[in-house]
């Protein structure tokens, strides 16, 4: 930093500082003349918008913290006091509360943008991983923050989420006690959650710094997914993108303000205006909207994974690695051996799944369907079929599926092996990806409904399971397959040719 060549500034104060610590040179280099592809669309606004939201959250959070009391007897009332008595307290709280939602809106669009245009591919893998880490930290921060107002959803949301930890074999219960500081979500939990909720945004800030650093080394991707080849493909960041970012930010802020001023509680849950009561569980616990798709994945696993299921699953996983991830199988000699293994693995998984499901089928229904009754009787007679001997209980399975779905984001750069970045030139990838987005939204809907809900006779749990299946198949099966077999459309020569193509041709005619 700063040992290189430096252009003097005209303003003497700026020059005095810059000659001692070249911070203005640095800012100018990174945010002034910094070359950026000339063909950004509005999807490229959301990084700047997310950064803005982080600053808003830290600013409003700081002032909320000055009026907030982290104590189970006082927390709820202190938030009500912020709403009624503190000057403009309602505004600060509504900015913070809806800010969390709008921060997530911006970040979700930002992530899906990156996936559509292949921004995670070489050389931007580390940039992508840092981004995924920010997403994970944001989820933790928002979860901790939601506990602070100490309403019914705060308490019971925290109870259910920390209940996940008890699914971990052997150490789960102790881990949960360590996390809570007691045997239930209570005062020790609230005070530590407040401390962590205060800290984590600053950790996020630090990771954002690294994220932007990595971005400024590799440079931005763009809607065409091809690298800029020279100055004719780029524009200086200022004033071109400072303007475009400001415009997009203003539109975003207007929508954000509509929520703050006209429908501040639309995205929240009314039960959180009831003070937390450890003796009464609300009839229907739902997390904040931004967690719903992951909550649906958590609840989609309602079956125990017994030894049959896991054995079949392991065989299928080996086949996936051998025939899909590798160009040539290493351990499996021939295609026919592969097909035989596929049949065995599939059958084992099916036997395990059906046998376990039999334990939960309605007894009256079984009586009426003699064929199934016989099958279930036979399957349940097998050794190691019962729920107690299943190494992965339904609860643990759900937790693994949920954390796994976030973990997949981190390794995405190595799952999508196709050399072409932008979905514009990958027709198959484009369809599969857009389907993923639709399914993600459907999962969100499933997560918002009670566990036993159904639509047109189809239990939503099954919809959730199918959606979870596609989510995993997209990352582990579809992407590697497309990487090997999808033929991309021809890429343009360069950015400026693609952008100005028609104009160049028109001009050469004259």
């Amino acid at each position: 930093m700063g040992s290189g060549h430096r252009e003097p500034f005209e303003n003497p104060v700026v020059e005095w500082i810059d000659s001692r610590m070249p911070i203005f040179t640095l800012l100018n280099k990174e945010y002034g003349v910094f070359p950026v592809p000339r063909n950004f669309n509005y999807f490229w606004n959301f990084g700047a918008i997310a950064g803005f939201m982080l600053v808003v959250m830290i600013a409003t959070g700081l002032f909320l913290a000055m009026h907030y009391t982290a104590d189970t007897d006082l927390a709820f009332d202190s938030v009500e006091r912020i709403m009624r008595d503190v000057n403009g307290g309602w505004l600060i709280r509504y900015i913070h509360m809806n800010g969390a939602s709008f921060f997530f809106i911006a970040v979700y669009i930002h992530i899906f943008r990156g996936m559509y245009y292949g921004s995670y591919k070489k050389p931007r893998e580390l940039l992508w991983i840092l981004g995924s880490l920010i997403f994970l930290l944001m989820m933790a921060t928002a979860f901790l923050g939601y506990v602070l107002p100490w309403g019914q959803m705060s308490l019971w949301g925290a109870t259910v989420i920390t209940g996940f930890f008890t699914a971990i074999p052997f150490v789960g219960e102790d881990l949960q006690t360590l996390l809570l500081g007691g045997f239930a979500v209570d005062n020790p939990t609230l005070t530590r959650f407040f401390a962590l909720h205060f800290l984590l945004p600053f950790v996020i800030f630090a990771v954002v710094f690294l994220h932007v650093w990595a971005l400024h080394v590799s440079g931005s991707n763009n809607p065409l997914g091809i690298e800029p080849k020279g100055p004719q493909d780029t524009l200086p960041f200022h004033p071109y993108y400072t303007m475009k970012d400001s415009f997009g930010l203003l539109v975003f802020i207007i929508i954000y303000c509509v929520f703050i001023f006209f429908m501040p509680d639309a995205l929240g849950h009314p039960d959180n205006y009831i003070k937390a009561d450890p003796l009464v569980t609300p009839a229907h616990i739902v997390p904040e909207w931004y967690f719903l798709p992951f909550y649906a994945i958590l609840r989609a696993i309602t079956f125990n994974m017994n030894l049959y299921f896991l054995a079949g699953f392991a065989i299928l996983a080996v086949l996936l690695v051998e025939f899909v991830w590798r160009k040539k199988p290493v351990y499996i000699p021939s295609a026919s051996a592969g097909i035989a293994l596929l049949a065995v693995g599939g059958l084992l998984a099916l036997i395990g799944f059906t046998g376990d499901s039999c334990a939960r089928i309605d007894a009256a229904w079984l009586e009426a369907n003699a064929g199934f009754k016989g099958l279930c009787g036979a399957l349940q007679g097998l050794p190691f079929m019962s729920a107690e001997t299943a190494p992965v209980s339904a609860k643990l399975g759900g937790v693994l599926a949920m954390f796994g779905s976030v973990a997949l984001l981190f390794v995405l750069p190595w799952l999508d092996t196709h050399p072409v970045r932008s979905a514009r030139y990958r027709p198959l990838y484009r369809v599969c990806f857009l389907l993923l987005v639709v399914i993600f939204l459907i999962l969100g809907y499933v997560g918002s409904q009670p566990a036993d809900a159904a639509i047109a006779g189809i239990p939503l749990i099954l919809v959730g399971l199918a959606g979870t299946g596609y989510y995993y198949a997209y990352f582990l099966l579809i992407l590697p397959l497309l990487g090997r077999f999808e033929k991309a459309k021809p890429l343009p020569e360069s950015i400026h040719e693609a952008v100005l193509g028609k104009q160049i041709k028109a001009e050469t005619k004259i």
Partner: protein
Amino acid sequence: MSAHTQSDHDKDGETRRDFMALVAGAFGAVGAAIAAWPLINSLNPAKDTLALATIEVELSEIPVGTAKTVMWRGKPVFIRHRTPEQIEAARSVATQSLIDKEADEQRVKKPEWLVTVGVCTHLGCVPAGQKESDNHGDFGGWFCPCHGSHYDTSGRIRKGPAPKNLAVPPYEFLSDTKIKIG
């Protein structure tokens, strides 16, 4: 790095310096872990949290067929004064057919008194069923609204995602009408 004399090297070309660096690094790592331990341990339940770990409950105030909820270690404990029909319902099912195989006799000290921790063994909600007007589920005991677990009149899981029966806390009868939990 500085040059080493011949005697610094053993036959594999490793130096005593490499060894010293390893030892120093290992001591540093162990030291950091030991320093972190008090911080992590401070998160465990404090003495006052643990001190609330026993309570006494007067049973004569609970008429037959009703239940009382008390707090123990920050968790609700269900105390139910069971009717003969409820006891009969709990004892007439075959233990082998249950999800978590426990006989009613193993779960109570006196048949008419059922004492359980009122926390669903799935993800920790408080099941409904303490009040007469509550939903008691398909088996006449408790129903957890969170993800639909049904418990019977012995607090045993009969249907739904919960893996285990409602836990029985450690308790003893101090007299015929008084118990100590914890």
